[in-house]
């Protein structure tokens, strides 16, 4: 037993440091510090940032037991807690929908909660109680697997800056009004939504991340957007919808984002952008666009190539370009000959004297070596005076055409003396 006075060198540090230390511990260890000494008895009880997960209880095969223990632990913690709770995080695979969660949320709504993260189990989705919508000071809200039904009187989260909804059941107009009623919203992430047609009004939005089956995305009034990442999945009825669409998706999506710095598009994004009548000649210049990453681009579809071209030609300050070719090109080698007449398309479509003055890095992956792909590389090499790296990686399905690809690459003229062509052989 240590009873030497004056040798205790941690208990008298300022409370803010103690809180920093306790916050870096798993919450169970933080609570355990209460029996260290009399000074430590309630140091844990004023923590303002609490994170609960399945490590808080001893795991066992009895799921019901684990769930009950977790509920007890959290309830006891909250009941003994003293002071405001600014951040509450719960990540669990065991707890699903439970009446206690409603009570916790009610409790937290009275404690000035600012950041709330709930990731619950997979079985019965939790239905968020209305007290969630009365957390006036929320700045960050992340929900995974739940049902949201904002009450009619809900006027929005006026302080919300960061919103992330993943696998959340919510009516389409409810989500639109939720987004537009959060005037300070800076970052929005929507994942795994089904067939959502969405118009986004968010004047302060800077970061947008969308993933799921979106029928239609229209960015209205999002002039401050800096980074966009979109992954569009395709199902049959969305494909149909795409065929029938008459408006120009490119303009709807990228028409109003002059401050864009980074654009990442996965899966069917480029195809989505290529839909629409008259790939509008709206003169937009993306002065700040520096990084473009497009995956699953199909070089057999002329419209998709046009989308890519339009994007990069209107981005004078582009520095990095990654293009990954779509797998559907696997069967393309036989039809390559049929594409021959279109080969002068490059001279037609590309404005002469178009230089990519800042382009330094280009990465092409999953290539098949079809003419359009090679011509694209030729085009880039010829018009990028400061290019440093051109990295080319053939697709794993290409077994015999690699040498030909390499031979062609070696012939291309390079505008930049520093350009290196790196052929990745994996």
């Amino acid at each position, binding site marked *: 037993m*240590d009873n030497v006075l004056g040798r205790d060198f*941690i208990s008298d540090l300022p409370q803010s440091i103690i809180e*920093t230390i306790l916050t870096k511990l798993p919450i169970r260890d933080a609570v355990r510090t209460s029996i*260290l*000494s009399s000074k430590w*008895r309630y140091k844990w009880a004023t923590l303002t940032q609490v994170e609960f997960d399945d490590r808080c209880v001893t795991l066992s095969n009895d799921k019901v037991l684990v769930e009950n223990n977790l509920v*007890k632990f959290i309830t006891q913690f909250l009941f003994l807690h003293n002071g405001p709770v600014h951040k509450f995080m719960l990540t669990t695979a065991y707890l699903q929908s439970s009446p206690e969660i409603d009570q916790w949320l009610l409790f937290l709504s009275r404690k000035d909660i600012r950041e709330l993260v709930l990731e619950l189990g997979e079985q019965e989705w939790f239905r968020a109680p209305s007290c969630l919508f009365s957390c006036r000071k929320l700045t960050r809200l992340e929900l995974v697997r739940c049902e949201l039904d904002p009450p009619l009187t809900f006027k929005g989260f006026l302080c919300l800056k960061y919103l992330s909804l993943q696998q959340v059941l919510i009516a389409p107009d409810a989500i639109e009004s939720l987004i537009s009623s959060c005037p300070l919203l800076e970052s929005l992430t929507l994942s795994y939504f089904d067939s959502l047609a969405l118009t986004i009004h968010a004047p302060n939005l800077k970061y947008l991340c969308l993933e799921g089956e979106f029928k239609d995305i229209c960015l209205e009034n999002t002039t401050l957007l800096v980074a966009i990442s979109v992954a569009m999945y395709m199902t049959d009825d969305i494909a149909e919808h795409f065929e029938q669409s008459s408006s120009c998706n490119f303009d709807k999506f990228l028409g109003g984002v002059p401050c864009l710095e980074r654009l990442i598009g996965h899966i069917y994004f480029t195809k989505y952008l290529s839909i629409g009548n008259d790939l509008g000649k709206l003169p937009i210049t993306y002065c700040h666009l520096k990084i473009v990453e497009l995956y699953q681009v199909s070089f057999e579809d002329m419209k998709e190539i046009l989308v890519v071209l339009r994007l990069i030609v209107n981005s004078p300050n582009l520095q990095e370009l990654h293009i990954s070719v779509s797998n559907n090109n696997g069967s393309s080698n036989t039809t390559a000959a049929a594409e021959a007449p279109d080969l002068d398309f490059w001279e037609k479509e590309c404005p002469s004297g178009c230089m990519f003055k800042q382009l330094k890095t280009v990465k092409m992956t999953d290539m098949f070596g079809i003419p359009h792909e090679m011509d694209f590389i030729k085009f880039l090499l010829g018009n990028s005076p400061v290019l440093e790296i051109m990295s080319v990686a053939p697709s794993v399905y290409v077994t015999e055409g690699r040498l030909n690809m390499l031979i062609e690459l070696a012939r291309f003229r390079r505008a930049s003396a520093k350009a290196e062509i790196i052929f990745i052989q994996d």
Partner: protein
Amino acid sequence: MFCPMICSEIHTGMGSSKNYPISLPPRVNPSMLSLILDYCRFHQVPGRSNKERKSFDEKFIRMDTKRLCELTSAADSLQLKPLVDLTSRALARMIEGKTPEEIRETFHLPDDLTEEEKLEPLKNTTDDPRIRLLNRLYARKRKELKERERLKNVDVEEEEHVDDRSVDDLLSFINGGNGDSKGVRTSKNKKKNRRRKDQLKNASSSCAVSSNNTSASNNVEIHKEESNGLDSMHQNVTIHDHVLHNMVETLKLQDVEDDSFAPEDEFDEGDIDDEIDPAMQEKIDREVEDFARRLNSDWPERMQEILSLGKGRRYSRLDHDGEDI
């Protein structure tokens, strides 16, 4: 930049000459300052890779705990957030996953929570009857401990008194042999035990009345009956009674605790043992063995006697002590 406080001081014109020094906050002493300067000097060089910075950080925080705490304090008063984060993380690593004793040793914390406070349930009663029972037992235990505390103080005074006596008295004390000394102690213990017995009697009766459902409480009942029954047979062996009670309670407490008290497991484990000091512990062990031998010799008959006796006693106790709940 790195250090807002010093920056702001510089802006107000301080630090430019010896006459206007930037006065450091009190928690920053010269050795800490030199450490902090090392840290800043390394990290402000822009060309270093993240890996280099990380390995520097790892090496940097390798120092004894006292200095680490001082460094954290100094960094905090200078508002050097990256360094505060680094040192806090190191301190957190020293706390995570360790037992309370280890943590107390690392930081030289005084173990000044009373037994009572350690046992005090940091939770609220739920509807589980076992939890209610447990809390009742805790309440009893707290009372006992308070008694013991008081008596200990009394004893301490008495014993000190004894030590001041003449050599002759001491000699006679020693020569009186084990019998006397034991006798002295027994009488004191008898005092405590009688009080404890009464409390436990009440406890068991209230248990019998209110918590009929759980097996745990039934077990406790039977044990208490048993020992009280035995007590009636062995009037002068009150120590054993007390001992058995304690052991049984200790065991029962540990049985009844299941994972639902997870936050408390760590609170209680080491501490139930701590309540009996080592010398007493040995004595108790010896007596328990002795007693166990005697018990095992004619157990079946005893069992019958006890149960029949116990049943009778239980009902009578209810009548008398019913209001003691």
